[in-house]
């Protein structure tokens, strides 16, 4: 008898996509723990010193970056390398701008509610944990950009792009929950 090794033909991208979504569910619980701590410790009140204009501005920047990220993903699916690179770069810039905005927020927060106060604890932990995710997203986008410049992605190799962009959207969606939790909630 002959031994023939046959691989099960299955769709790797589908499996990776499931893995990524499972990762998002898991990460969602991390933010759930931090966000629910805010309500436990601070109820529905919020300090007056929050810089509402800055908060709204960085939220807008981050939401806009999701648009450019989406355009980058769509263009690689259509094989448009130039458009992909331009939009990836735009996403990197918007993401970095968001991080600069968070740094400005932190500079103000150190004056009004430093980390050893109750609201400061919540504020620095939530923005810090989210900012860390944005930073890692920017690093991934930079990898994507440099690989893209060498033409490593195309209609037959889209998974790295899809994975990083999905992660970027996830980080955005998390901010959609953190922003009202920090800036808008009031009794």
């Amino acid at each position, binding site marked *: *008898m*002959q*031994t*023939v*090794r*046959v*691989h*099960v033909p*299955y769709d790797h991208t*589908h*499996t990776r996509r*499931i*893995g990524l979504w*499972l*990762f998002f*569910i*898991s*990460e969602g*619980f*991390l933010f*759930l*723990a*931090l966000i629910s*701590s805010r309500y*436990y*410790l601070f109820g529905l009140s919020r300090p007056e010193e929050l810089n509402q204009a800055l908060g709204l501005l960085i939220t807008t920047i981050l939401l806009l970056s999701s648009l450019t990220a989406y355009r980058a993903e769509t263009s690689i699916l259509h094989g448009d390398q130039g458009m992909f690179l331009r939009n990836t770069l735009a996403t990197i810039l918007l993401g970095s701008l968001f991080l600069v905005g968070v740094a400005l927020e932190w500079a103000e927060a150190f004056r009004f509610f430093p*980390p*050893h*106060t*109750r609201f*400061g*604890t919540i504020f*620095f*932990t939530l923005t810090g944990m989210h900012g860390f995710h944005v930073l890692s997203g920017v690093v991934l986008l930079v*990898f994507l950009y440099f*690989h893209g410049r*060498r033409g*490593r992605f195309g209609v037959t190799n889209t998974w790295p792009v899809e994975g990083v962009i999905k992660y970027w959207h996830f980080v955005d969606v998390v901010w959609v929950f953190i922003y009202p939790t920090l800036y808008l909630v009031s009794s």
Partner: protein
Amino acid sequence: MAFAPILRGLVWGALGFLLGGGGAVLVRLLLGLPAFQPEPLITIGYFPGLLGWLLGVGAWDVWAREWFGLPVRREAVYDWRRYFRFTTDHKVIGVQYLVTFVVLFLLAGFFAMLMRIELMAPGPTIMSAGLYNHIMSMHGIIMIAVAVAAIIGGLGNFAVPLLIGAEDMAFPRINALSYWLIPPVAVLLVSTFFAGGFDSGWTAYPPLSEVNAPGQVLFNLAVITFGFSSILGALNFLATILRLRAPGMTWRRLPIFVWSIFAASFISLTATQFLAAGLLMILLDREAGMTFFNAARGGAPLLYQHIFWFYSHPAVYIMILPAFGLALEILPHFSRKPLYAYPWLVAGFFGIVFLSFIVWAHHLFTSGMPDYLHGPFMATTELISIPTGLVFLSALGTIWMGRLRLKTPMLFALGFLFNFLIGGVTGIFNADVPTDLHLQDTYFVVGHFHFTIMGGMIFALFAGIYYWFPKITGRMYNETLGKLHFWWMFLTFNTTFIPMFWLGLFGMNRRIFDYPPALGSVNRFISISAFLLGSSFVVFVSNMVLSWARGPQAAANPWQARTLEWQVPSPPPVHNFPAPPQVVGHPYDYGFTNSVHALVGVSGGSGEQGVDTDG
């Protein structure tokens, strides 16, 4: 050289640690803070150190090079040295987990022996109160890690891809990563001995965990790392079971052990983040001066207990669901009968998963939680007895009128049922608020969870180890020694832990190295039983070592079982199956003529091809 990857991991890890710690010193100098505070430096240096270790031990070669557009480097190592490599074969990783956690189990058991020596007589015996608390905490956390990871990481990794007819896990490199995160955990926990220890127990409640020795920081980092490992493992199992089942392996034909791993992985994937979050908050309070749990600055210590138990109560089902699955996997094969009420059993598993998320506050009945929460959490907790009852009915229905083959794995599975019944029934007294107010923090609780976790999960672990030993090693264990181990362990386990219920009712507090002199004789009896229980593992270890080295060759299917892993040679070849098996029937249909579970490829196997030969 055999240990070159591990050495490189250590060197890269040390470099990462110096880089992170050095950066932290620089930042502290710039901010005008005192530069050389050990705790923040260890905390910050640890994460780049961990990254360095993982890259050095093999993640760089088989993984990270890809990110920089370099070709990956894989070594083909098939002898014993592969157990010391960043190997992606699920069978090797399973053995790595299993051996690591059996060693940790014996270490934590040794700590338990030290505790029992101390408790032989009232008053100080051989150690100080502080050292007792540290040893008690070490025993707790290491045993928790064993309970969480030994079945899932060890037997799950080895058996799940085989049981579903897959070649490997869905993400083999993530699988290797989740194993190689374990050695840093063990090293950190052991090194707490050099950092003043930690005396907060495995629960790490603040305020104590925010003011005690730096050992607490090492504990927190270790458990965060361990949580990361179990999240990655859970993700991998879910993706594997969702995507890599062989053709014909429908959800109604899935072996029950696979179902239990699937259910437990849901809890691991999600709830573990709460443990990581809680321990991170403690670190932030300690190192960044934040105030989550610091009541003096407006924090809430009770918040920690909510966050902690939101993980740690579901976590007991991470431990016990795979144990249920393992026992129920073994019962039909050794009763030569179909698994009774299979769909109800699966429903029971998911009932447990759902309920496990809404019972956590029953740990807080005496903590100062609002009274109006007592009733609802008592009710949800007691509801769990319904799905658990389904599991028990299924087990009893399976062995009912069966032709029981009382081999060692079967004995351990039956021992599991006996012990877990006691553990479950005594749990009701802890779930009921009126009795719990009296029993909280006494030895009654210690007796209860040792009956569920040691009597349950550890007995199932041994059942699984004996059951799959011939498949894992290709050799047969010694049946006489196996049975000796079972009866020795079963009897001494019960004589050790049953008297603890009595001690608890008479008010002996847990986690304290001293007790009223009137309880001396019972404690002496427990200690002597515990030493006998400890010595039973000498039988186990010698059986394993001798049989692995020179036991008789095992047949491909020594138990005449129908599931897929027994249809390939022992040990299975590198890619498991010569061709994807075709699953055509239920795995447990013993006693049905012409019933077939699967058609396994053209070579290897026992030749029986899943056909029942006994019933």
